[in-house]
């Protein structure tokens, strides 16, 4: 055999994206690496640095004949948090669910346009959804830990789905719990059921579960809307810390929340993107009259 190992083309479909873009963990380290805790060993998570762009180009989404997202152009920038605001039913969830292709799981739903992760179209032919969802993690409105699994197994679930070697799992679970700000609260009780945690802790468990597979992008669909103010604040702080590691988009109903966590805010109305800009400008001096009306509470 006279080929070089590097000439072998990757045929495994799961690695299709992986073979075309370097893994996020291999991205250059941040200028000041985050300090390492003595309890949790270093893992890719700590070296992670948000570098990936998501760009939606002329994205349309439908439920049967209901045209829920109508030609949105929007980017999620690395190192920044993008908030998506807008009245109920305007298509915020539908739009973010197109990014990790959860939209297509709904019977009768389809979408059109491009969703670019850097320069790879996640909707393109031959791109495997499993790979897409490894690169684009998601946190839902309702905390949804797996009911039969322990705290540890919940966080390990994604690693097991993707065939992570056994001996790496413990370190990566610990690192993910640390990154989700949950380690101190669950240390020593990792084998208890995930459902035994409080609502806010469950939501951070779900964040840890999403982070454990070291995604490049994290989508959060109203992650705090079922939580009390203290738990909400914790998650908002967490978002602020995580944005250095992973590109974040947060759907929220809560304008104060967008103001607190987001660098960029996008305003949607009836399936269209009305305006996007720096959060400060969106709330004080928006270009569009409808944005102004919405952020000042005149409708929505």
């Amino acid at each position, binding site marked *: 055999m006279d080929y070089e190992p590097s000439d072998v083309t990757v045929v495994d479909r799961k690695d299709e994206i992986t073979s075309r873009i370097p893994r996020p963990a291999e991205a250059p380290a941040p200028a000041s690496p985050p300090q390492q805790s003595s309890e949790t060993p270093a893992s890719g998570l700590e070296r992670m640095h948000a570098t990936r762009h998501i760009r939606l180009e002329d994205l349309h989404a439908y439920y049967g004949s209901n045209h829920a997202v109508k030609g949105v152009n929007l980017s999620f920038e690395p190192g920044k948090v993008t908030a998506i605001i807008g009245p109920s039913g305007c298509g915020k969830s539908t739009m973010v669910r197109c990014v990790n292709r959860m939209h297509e799981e709904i019977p009768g739903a389809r979408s059109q346009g491009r969703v670019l992760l850097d320069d790879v179209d996640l909707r393109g032919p031959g791109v495997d959804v499993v790979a897409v969802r490894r690169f684009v993690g998601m946190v*839902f409105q309702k905390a949804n830990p797996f009911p039969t699994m322990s705290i540890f197994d919940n966080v390990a679930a994604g690693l097991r789905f993707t065939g992570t070697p056994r001996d790496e799992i413990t370190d990566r679970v610990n690192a993910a719990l640390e990154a989700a700000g949950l380690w101190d609260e669950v240390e020593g009780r990792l084998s208890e059921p995930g459902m035994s945690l409080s609502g806010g802790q469950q939501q951070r468990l779900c964040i840890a579960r999403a982070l454990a597979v070291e995604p490049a992008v994290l989508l959060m669909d109203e992650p705090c809307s079922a939580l009390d103010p203290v738990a909400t604040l914790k998650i908002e702080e967490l978002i602020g810390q995580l944005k250095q590691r992973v590109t974040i988009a947060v759907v929220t109903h809560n304008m104060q929340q967008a103001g607190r966590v987001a660098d960029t805010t996008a305003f949607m109305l009836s399936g269209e993107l009305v305006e996007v800009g720096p959060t400060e400008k969106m709330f004080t001096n928006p270009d569009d009259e409808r944005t102004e009306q919405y952020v000042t509470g005149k409708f929505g």
Partner: protein
Amino acid sequence: MRRRHAINRAVEVSCWTAALLAVAVLAIVLVSIALKGAGEINLDFLTQNTSSFGVGGIGNALVGTGILIGLAALMAIPVGILIAIYTSEFAGRRSGFVIRYVLDILNGVPTIITGIFVFALLVVGHQQSGWAGAVGLAIVMLPLVARSCHEVLALVPGHVKEAGLALGASRWRTTLSVTVPTALSGMITGALLAVARAVGETAPLLLVTSIYPDLLVTDPSQPLPNVTVTIFRYSETPDPVKHAQAWGAAFILILFVLALSIVARSLSARMRRRLGAAR
């Protein structure tokens, strides 16, 4: 106002009466079987072979029923669970509906007809056999297993399944690693209730595994002695000893069914608690 009060009261009282009636029927059945049957239970009765005359017991019938139920469960439970997974997780709305409808019809087929069907299929031209009896019981169990497992799988909240998909698990992987474990105790409940139902069936066995020797038979290619046909046979004899033994066998049967349903209910309560927390 007073009239509405009176109607309320009347409805309440009739509901109570109806409920009491159901409890009373169950109590009467249990108590009379216990009174007539419990006295028969002793080691000889449980270990001796069946007989047409003299004392004997039901030992070989217990073994045969165990084999029949075991074989039927091995056929019906895996197939029923696969059908349930298909209808609840994969089938489109229409095909899922059609399959569930067919299962409901199958569930409504009188079991004597199931017996005749199995007789025509497996016994005519061959001979009676344990296999034929097991197939008959499996046909009784299949729709029960499939429907009850479908119900509990459908109870697993969609947002839990979504969490699996969003982590990059395929639909199958999500089903096997997330949905089935979450529903597992409910699925076991369904399977146990189906066993409890099948263990008391007589009609599917009457034509296909009823002519058996009063000996221990463990080879399912031969007709297997079994409890329900034995009860039928003993109660048809003129011998009062055999009548009493029929009650004894009935008592054993009903104890077994009761125990199974209690275990099944407590498992399903456990699953509901767990899902209650996930809702």
